[in-house]
């Protein structure tokens, strides 16, 4: 007999109202600024007014004289604490990040001093009285500045912060592109974006007793934040407790603690007082880390029938001065063609340092891949005379094509963009629209239809140590109610509702009886919180497994007490039933009473209590797919875009709560609309931010965001527990190309639209008018985009292709190599940050052999010696199968060289004797 395991059915998949909403909507949320502690003081920062310069003198005397000022601190006051400002991956940055500026400032808003005062008013009064003399220097502001200007950071050899893909040109790929029947190329730039959470950053730090610390933090997950603090400060994790009850949005900004939060925590320890800092909106728009600011030149070769032949991408992203992890955004390249039949793809990607605020994540950090690809496909369709939807169908990988492996080495099992597109087109009558469009054009009205597809890796659990697994601890309390401590974390995600739905259904209890806690690092186990669209899949899976284990125990216990067999027991609505001739029941509360209070009545050997902890690791990647369509009207008189209709079709697997799924899609699309039409953080040539309030940084408002139509018909369960797929970032990824394509379609009678976001009314009216409306300035400012800067050196064309060419090396003089035998400490600069490991080398004639030791793992290799040049290959399997080709020079008592990492380009290696 297969008794149903899930006995209270209908919670998973139900459109339930969110438990947390009543509290949040009636002003009863608890955000960091709602925290007040006895003796707490307030912090305000004094920040650099210039983008780049040397600090000559700092005069704090006037600030210190203000009554109510408790302390004024600068970097030297905090220097007693050693802090490693780690990346999100907990890696050390190549360029160390100071907590407060030391000797030099690197962007407008760089924090130099902090005032601690009895209230924020006084703190700001005093911060305004700090006098700093600078020796100002010309800043490096744009990507073009970074490539050609002076070094942002001393002791670096270029402004390249991170690199993926080699500088060498791949002749084979270039030949394919050059000789194809059709070559379509776009130059696209994405503006800089401020994540703009409704609640800016904030922290309350309270030293507790001897060396313990409680930190109230607006963040994406208290467990990860506690782990970050512990590792950055070299403190035991148990002595740091991070509490994060309600968070008003993050979108990537609060992924890890950063300079201001760290400064406040250090100052609290120094002063032995609780301190509060709440970032205000001016600070948030000028000093908090930001995102995007990317450029891409994408080239694609097509056959006459629209078949994809080859492609190359050249990509740059502004990392600012201190990125939260230097990044060349490898995921852009990983997913650009992951869902398409494309035989050859090469790329060259660079992250660049500039004198601007640092790069942080933003919902769908790699979203540019979909924007560039989908916009290019529409351009190609027009050029080749093939319908844009048909062109997509010819290259999309369908369910029938899978399983398969992409040229980038990605193993696909169940992506479904083609099937989502089919479902989408059941709800969008393209032919009828084309008739309406033609009629409208006769009246001088410009309607356009845009379509896009995409896939998204969600809930990744491979390769990134902080993102592997999630924990759920479920307790049936002695009262019969259910408490769950889950390592998810909501910044508005509604996980207190969705996780409770999962637990209630799998346990067979009433939804109202389940309370989910996720706000305190001292409760439950490690988990990253909200990252990479993972909470439904990873957190939901953990809840299912934990609930199932608990059900197993309940069945054994109830069977024993009720004199039945475990398989005859089931739970429904918090009541335990026994199948059989005469049905017996017992309430969960009575059972819990016995479990905790009378363990002698339990089966022989069974532990007291009713609680289970489970750590779930989902499959390596769970793919979500979607296709969207959007219809716009562009006003021919003003260039304004009106969104008339937006239809979505996605495969997000089994939905826990369709309302939450649709809320995630809608929120992402609202941000997409902002990106395409209005949001822009810009700088003047001196590095001064020019949109510093919401009067100038334009977020879409309710009147700019239409009602979206949602279709879930193409969904299929994933292989993850529960069949869920992530849906957190998708709208922000697929939204921009959908909208850009609709605008391009509307204005196609006038030619191509510019691909420099945002597409403001001004830019679109220029297309309609067929003329520039720029100011007739005598000196045009030097443009930063490859499209507008033909005089620049040509974008270097990379070889980093799937087919690995060999590189020739010149012979070098013979040196004594036996001297390198022994133990070495190596540092490899990977696209995910520098990685340190130890290794052992041994030489014999012209053969070098050795082993590397990574975190209790070992890899051995054998290679050749030629003069002072060493070469060996090392095969690794994580995060994907790849052969690393080492090419190392002996330089005195050091080893320097590079490692070719297949399609991921070349990384620098340095070694020192242990």
């Amino acid at each position, binding site marked *: 007999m297969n008794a149903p395991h899930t006995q209270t059915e209908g919670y998973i998949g139900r459109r339930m109202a969110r438990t947390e909403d009543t509290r949040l909507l009636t002003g009863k949320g608890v955000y960091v600024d709602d925290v007040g502690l006895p003796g707490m003081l307030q912090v305000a920062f004094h920040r650099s007014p210039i983008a780049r310069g040397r600090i000559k003198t700092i005069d704090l005397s006037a600030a210190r004289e203000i009554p109510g000022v408790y302390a004024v601190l600068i970097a030297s006051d905090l220097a007693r604490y050693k802090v490693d400002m780690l990346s999100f991956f907990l890696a050390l940055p190549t360029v160390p990040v100071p907590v407060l500026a030391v000797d030099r400032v690197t962007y407008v808003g760089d924090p130099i001093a902090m005032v601690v005062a009895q209230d*924020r*008013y006084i703190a*700001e*009064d005093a911060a*305004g009285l700090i006098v700093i003399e600078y020796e100002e220097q010309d800043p490096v502001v744009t990507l073009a500045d970074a490539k050609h200007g002076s070094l942002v950071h001393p002791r670096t050899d270029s402004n390249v912060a991170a690199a993926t893909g080699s500088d060498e040109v791949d002749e084979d790929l270039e030949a394919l592109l050059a000789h194809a029947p059709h070559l379509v190329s776009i130059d696209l730039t994405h503006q800089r974006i401020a994540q703009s959470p409704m609640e800016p950053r904030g922290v309350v730090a309270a030293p507790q007793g001897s060396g313990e610390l409680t930190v109230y933090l607006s963040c994406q997950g208290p467990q990860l934040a506690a782990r970050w603090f512990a590792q950055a400060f070299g403190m035991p994790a148990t002595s740091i407790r991070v509490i994060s009850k309600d968070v008003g949005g993050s979108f990537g900004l609060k992924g890890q603690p950063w300079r201001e939060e760290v400064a406040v925590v250090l100052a609290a320890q120094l002063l032995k007082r609780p301190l509060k800092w709440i970032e*205000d*909106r*001016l600070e948030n728009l000028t000093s908090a880390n930001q995102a995007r600011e990317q450029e891409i030149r994408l080239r694609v070769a097509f056959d006459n029938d629209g078949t994809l032949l080859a492609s190359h991408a050249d990509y740059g992203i502004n990392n600012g001065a201190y990125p939260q992890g230097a990044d060349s955004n490898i995921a852009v390249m990983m997913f650009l063609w992951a869902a398409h039949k494309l035989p050859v793809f090469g790329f060259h990607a660079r992250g660049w340092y500039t004198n601007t605020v640092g790069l942080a994540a933003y919902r769908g950090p790699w979203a540019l891949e979909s924007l560039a690809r989908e916009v290019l496909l529409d351009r190609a369709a027009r050029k080749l005379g093939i319908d844009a939807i048909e062109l997509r169908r010819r290259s999309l990988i369908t369910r029938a094509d899978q399983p398969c492996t992409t040229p980038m080495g990605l193993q696909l099992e169940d992506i479904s963009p083609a099937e989502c597109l089919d479902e989408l087109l059941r709800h969008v009558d393209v032919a009828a629209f084309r008739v309406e469009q033609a009629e409208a054009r006769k009246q001088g009205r410009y309607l356009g239809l845009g379509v896009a597809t995409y896939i998204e890796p969600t809930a990744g659990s491979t390769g990134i140590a902080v993102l592997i697994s999630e924990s759920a601890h479920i307790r049936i309390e002695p009262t019969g109610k259910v408490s769950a401590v889950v390592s998810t974390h909501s910044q508005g995600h509604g996980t207190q509702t969705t996780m409770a739905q999962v637990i209630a259904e799998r346990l067979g209890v009433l939804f109202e009886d389940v309370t989910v806690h996720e706000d305190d690092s001292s409760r439950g186990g490690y988990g990253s919180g909200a990252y990479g669209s993972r909470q439904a899949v990873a957190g939901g899976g953990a809840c299912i497994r934990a609930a199932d284990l608990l059900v197993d125990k309940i069945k054994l216990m109830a069977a024993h007490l009720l004199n039945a067999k475990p398989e005859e027991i089931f739970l429904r609505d918090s009541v335990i039933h026994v199948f059989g001739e005469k049905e017996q029941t017992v309430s969960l509360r009575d059972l819990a009473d016995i479990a905790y209070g009378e363990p002698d009545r339990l089966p022989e050997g069974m532990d007291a209590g009713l609680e289970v902890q489970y750590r779930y690791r989902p499959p390596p990647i769970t793919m979500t797919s979607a296709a969207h369509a959007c219809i716009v009207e562009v006003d021919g*008189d*003003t*260039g*304004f875009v009106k969104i008339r209709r937006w239809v979505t079709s996605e495969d997000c697997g089994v939905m826990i709560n369709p309302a939450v799924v649709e809320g995630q899609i809608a929120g992402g699309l609202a941000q997409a609309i902002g990106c395409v039409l*209005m949001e*822009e953080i*810009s700088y003047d040539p001196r590095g001064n931010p*020019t*949109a510093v*309030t919401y*009067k*100038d940084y*334009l977020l*879409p*408002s309710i*009147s*700019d965001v239409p009602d979206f139509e949602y279709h879930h018909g193409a969904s299929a369960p994933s292989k993850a527990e529960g069949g869920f797929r992530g849906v957190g970032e998708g709208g922000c990824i697929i939204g921009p190309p959908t909208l850009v394509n609709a605008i391009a379609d509307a204005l196609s009678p006038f030619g191509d639209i510019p691909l420099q976001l945002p597409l*403001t*009314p*001004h830019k679109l*009216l220029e297309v309609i*008018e067929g003329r520039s*409306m*720029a*100011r007739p300035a005598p000196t045009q400012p030097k443009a930063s985009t490859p499209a507008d800067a033909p005089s620049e050196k040509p974008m270097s064309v990379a070889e980093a292709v799937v087919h690995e060419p060999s590189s020739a090396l010149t012979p070098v003089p013979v040196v004594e190599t036996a001297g390198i035998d022994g133990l070495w400490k190596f540092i490899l600069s990977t696209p995910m940050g520098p990685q340190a490991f130890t290794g052992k080398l041994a030489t014999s004639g012209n053969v070098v052999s050795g082993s590397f030791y990574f975190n209790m793992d070992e890899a051995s290799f054998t290679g050749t010696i030629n003069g002072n040049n060493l070469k060996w290959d090392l095969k690794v399997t994580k995060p994907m199968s790849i052969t690393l080709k080492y090419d190392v020079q002996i330089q005195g008592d050091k080893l320097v060289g590079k490692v070719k990492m297949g399609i991921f380009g070349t990384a620098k290696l340095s070694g020192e004797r242990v």
Partner: protein
Amino acid sequence: MKPAPFDYLVPSTIEEACAQLAEAGGGATLLAGGQTLMPLLALRMSQPFILIDINRIKALKGATRVDGGTRIGPMMRQNEVIADPTLARELPVLVTAAQHVGHHQTRNRGTIGGSIALGEPAAELPATAVALGASVEVRSTRGSRRIAATDLYLGPYATALEPEEMITAIHFPDWPDDSISLFREVAQRPGDFALVGLTGAVTVKDGCIARAGIAWFGMGPTPIRARQVEAALLGQPIADLDLAGLAELAVADTAPFDDLHATAEYRRTVGRRIFARTLGERLNRNGP
């Protein structure tokens, strides 16, 4: 974003407020609805020594009919302007303009006098005052005077008001009941300041334009009265208007500039378009 220290005074009469202004000798700022001033204080872009809160002065509230026009108290909230039956009848374009000021929540506090005194060049109410030929009544301890709206604005946020003066009323002259309102605002989002805005009214007698009051906002350092097109329209038969030619004249007096959101040329181009579109639509709909 916390204001610098200031003294806070709450007068209950105009005389008291004028005395306080005089005593402050230019160091005081009046607080009306606070929808612009409070953010400026928070950003420390405005740091007055004294804030004089005029919200409790009853004589500054309400709208009344006076000989030949309507007298509006400067402390009338923008939402009160929208809801006032007298203003709806006498000054429909003022009501339309007020509906475009900020958002419902800000209009509950924001006042007509505060907006007119601030002189934001892209704001709706100063331009409407200019278009309709309004004037402001101002007081100080030295007495009172009237300033025509067209003479009030000197530059962005710069007015002919002396530091010790306060607006005590805004006078709008009567326009005939069958006047035709002209209003069109192009803003990036509803509630934003205009990229380009057009406001005013025309009257038609015997098929010809008999009176025209038209002004632009967002088209220069101050509200800009479109004098050339007003003159050209007078006496023109509405059945036979050269809209393109008039649109060209309409922007002839403007002096728009480039900013983050649009260039001067965009503003001029869109200005011509919305002038022709608005005038054409309104005359067809309301013409004889």
